[in-house]
């Protein structure tokens, strides 16, 4: 979908202003420079931008946004570009605003257990900066070596430890944001709450649609004294699902609880040789943390539960090296699955955990129907399912079939009471599926809220929330009591 990329008149004017008034700001306009910005982590969607600007102060961001606002130029804010939903895909006639130069850790406040950082700082770099103090930043999305903290806020990223430690929204205490008209706002504070509406929470997962984040204050946690990891094998996916419910039912909240199905286990084992039992139908990885006494007590109890629930084998990591090996296969699951086929498509639905066996069975049926294999990796503790559909983009029609299959999986997640995206965001990828999850009044409310921040829809236009018109065209609109909402709209 590489279309016309000649700059619009308005964009040309903004670029001229930047060159003249902000000569120190890096501005990329040559094709070879722009290529790196044509997609994010979802490379099936590409569009070369007309221009990329890389400011390095908040004042510059304010000035650039004000010009874009005054001249009606769309802006796509971009962090590290590791997003998986085409949320950072450039838009026609727009400017890509990269926050890559906002890469400083501004302050570590040990007494208040906080770090004030710029949005381009990598997630893992925060933990690395405070490791010597026995502290860490909890959310750990799998891309944490590369992804930026600003992008984490925009997507409300999770990770493998969010059942116990929460998502990004639970670990950020303050933000500095710039609205499209250049207004600078501070949301939240180093205190535990702030007056007025909870705009701090609202910014999380807003996908660059409401404002541009220029500073983030994160909460730091003391590193747990001890960690234990168990690996359990099951010859039936249903039993593995029941074991998860039994652990939580026993009053234990593991730090991490991950499930992989047979194809994912085989792929991971072939890739990193973690010692996984390849004859198992599913494995569970259960991490328990706390004081040494706590970990010892919980590890024993969880081992008993896993055996009672029919685990064919339960292993407990004896030391840090073995813990790492247990995790290695899970952490390498995506690239491992990537070796099985030329391409894979990662889905991100969340479902009520109890519906897992049924959902996996139906995904299996769809897999047969579409002739495309699926490996399942599951954040079992919080119900976030990542089916990975294997396909070959070079086979004509296969990408389209894969997307259709993926769409069916998302519809299934909504049908069982879940959501189309647990942690990757809607972006452009799932914008049509929003029509399945939300009826017109909810979508209208999203648009009204967006307008309160960005009345001309200049920030990341076309992403995250579909227009009612688009949903009507797709025929995916919810129908309540046989009545279509907004009958005044044309339908095709």
């Amino acid at each position, binding site marked *: 979908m590489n279309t016309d990329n000649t700059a619009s008149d308005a964009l040309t004017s903004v670029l001229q202003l930047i060159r003249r008034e902000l000569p120190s700001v890096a501005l990329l306009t040559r094709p070879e420079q722009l290529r790196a910005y044509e997609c994010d982590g979802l490379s099936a969607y590409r569009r070369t931008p007309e221009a990329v600007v890389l400011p390095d102060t908040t004042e510059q961001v304010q000035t650039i946004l004000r010009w874009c606002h005054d001249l009606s130029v769309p802006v796509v804010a971009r962090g590290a570009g590791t997003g998986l939903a085409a949320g950072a895909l450039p838009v026609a006639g727009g400017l890509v605003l990269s926050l890559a130069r906002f890469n400083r850790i501004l302050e570590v406040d040990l007494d208040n257990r906080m770090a004030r950082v710029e949005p381009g700082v990598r997630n893992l770099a925060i933990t690395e900066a405070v490791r010597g103090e026995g502290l860490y930043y909890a959310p750990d999305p799998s891309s944490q070596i590369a992804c930026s903290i600003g992008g984490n806020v925009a997507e409300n990223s999770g990770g493998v430890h969010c059942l116990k430690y929460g998502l990004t929204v639970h670990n950020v205490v303050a933000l500095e944001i710039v609205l499209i008209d250049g207004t600078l706002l501070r949301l939240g504070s180093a*205190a535990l709450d702030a007056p007025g509406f909870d705009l701090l929470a609202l910014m999380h997962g807003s996908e660059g649609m409401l404002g541009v984040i220029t500073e983030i204050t994160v909460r730091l946690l003391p590193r747990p004294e001890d960690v234990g990891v168990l690996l359990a094998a099951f010859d039936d996916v249903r039993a593995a699902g029941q074991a998860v419910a039994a652990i939580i039912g026993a009053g234990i909240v593991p730090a991490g609880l991950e499930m992989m199905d047979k194809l994912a286990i085989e792929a991971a084992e072939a890739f990193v040789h973690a010692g996984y039992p390849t004859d198992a139908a599913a494995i569970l990885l259960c991490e328990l943390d706390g004081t040494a006494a706590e970990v010892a007590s919980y590890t024993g109890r969880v081992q008993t539960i896993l055996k009672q629930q029919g685990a064919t084998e339960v292993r407990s990591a004896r030391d840090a090296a073995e813990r790492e090996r247990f995790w290695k296969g899970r952490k390498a699951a995506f690239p491992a699955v990537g070796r099985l086929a030329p391409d894979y498509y990662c889905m991100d639905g969340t479902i009520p955990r109890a519906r897992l066996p049924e959902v996996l069975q139906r995904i299996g049926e769809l897999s047969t129907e579409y002739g495309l294999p699926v490996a399942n990796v599951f954040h079992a503790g919080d119900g976030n399912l990542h089916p990975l559909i294997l396909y070959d983009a070079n086979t004509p029609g296969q990408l389209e079939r894969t997307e259709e299959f993926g769409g069916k999986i998302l519809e299934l997640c909504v049908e069982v009471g879940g959501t189309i995206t647990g942690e990757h965001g809607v972006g452009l990828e799932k914008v049509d599926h929003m029509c399945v999850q939300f009826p017109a*009044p909810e979508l209208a409310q999203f648009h009204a809220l967006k307008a309160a921040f960005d009345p001309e829809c200049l920030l990341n236009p076309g992403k995250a929330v579909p227009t009612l018109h688009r949903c009507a065209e797709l025929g995916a609109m919810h129908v309540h009591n046989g009545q279509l909402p907004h009958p005044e709209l044309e339908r095709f």
Partner: protein
Amino acid sequence: MRLSEDCTEALLGQVRQALSTGTPLNICGGGSKTHLGRAAAGEVIEVAAHRGIVSYEPAELVLTARAGTPLREIEAVLTEHGQHLPFEPPHFGENATLGGTIACGLSGPARFARGAARDYVLGAKLINGAGEVVRFGGQVMKNVAGYDMSRLMVGAYGTLGLLLEISLKVLPLPECTQTRVKRMGSQRALALMAELGRQPLPLTGAVWEAGSLYLRFAGAEAAVTEAGDHLGGEKLEIDTAWWQGVREMSAHFFTSERPLWRLSLPPASAPFAEAGETLIDWGGAQRWLKTQIEPEQVFAAATRAGGHATLYRDPRVSGQVQQPLSPELLALHQRIKQALDPQRVFNPGRLYAEI
């Protein structure tokens, strides 16, 4: 009164009527929190009858209940299954409802360790300013589809819509709890709380009052015993009632007639002791101050410390006095109110005069 009743249609009818006549509504649950926020005005709309737990799956750690459901009913059901609301919401009265708790965004002593009410809200169903029933979020723990409208409702004092149903994440009750008391001044207490906060301890309560620091540990028995022994100090035997007094603000400290301020500050901020009598909660992040000094001075001091203040109670003033928002932030609040409740029917003026 019936234990479970769906009054959505009746409430929708009343809201639509109010919208058609432009009548402001004063949303009322159990009436236990009328002392919070600014003084209410408008025609009372009763939500208490819209009650009942809609779904609760202990193994899923999710509970959904109608807004009028009494908080004590929810807590009783959770206790039965060995679970609880980890943010320890204060009730402020027998009739406290879930809707009022969420609308006011209230959290108790464990807030600094386990998170606030907003951290446990997964989804909400509400009547919006267009007179429609809308649903945001859901009953799953990870959900990033659409803007987080349900968390936006927490602490909005009902100014953005009428809450009908709320889904919450719940957690297992801690295996055991222990409170230790140590005598020390506020300055030393704040330093100790900061130091303990950097250690991996199961600390879920940290309050200083009248020369004593109260530290509560909760979790696995082995960890709690170890932490208590490590810290030393005197064991507080009947600690549940003591923490209840802080949570419900029924402790002796709160009974005075002097103006009472709530300061929300970065936890390690210097003590405000010189200004008046203080109770420090949330490991230093929430401070109660009884003082006669002028509101402008308290607001300014809280701002300098990096936090904010609320004149929580003053016999000379009706309703609470919130710290003013910056003009830019107030303007955004007004635009959000305009977007979600264009006719200003939901609790106008309850949070700020302008919204």
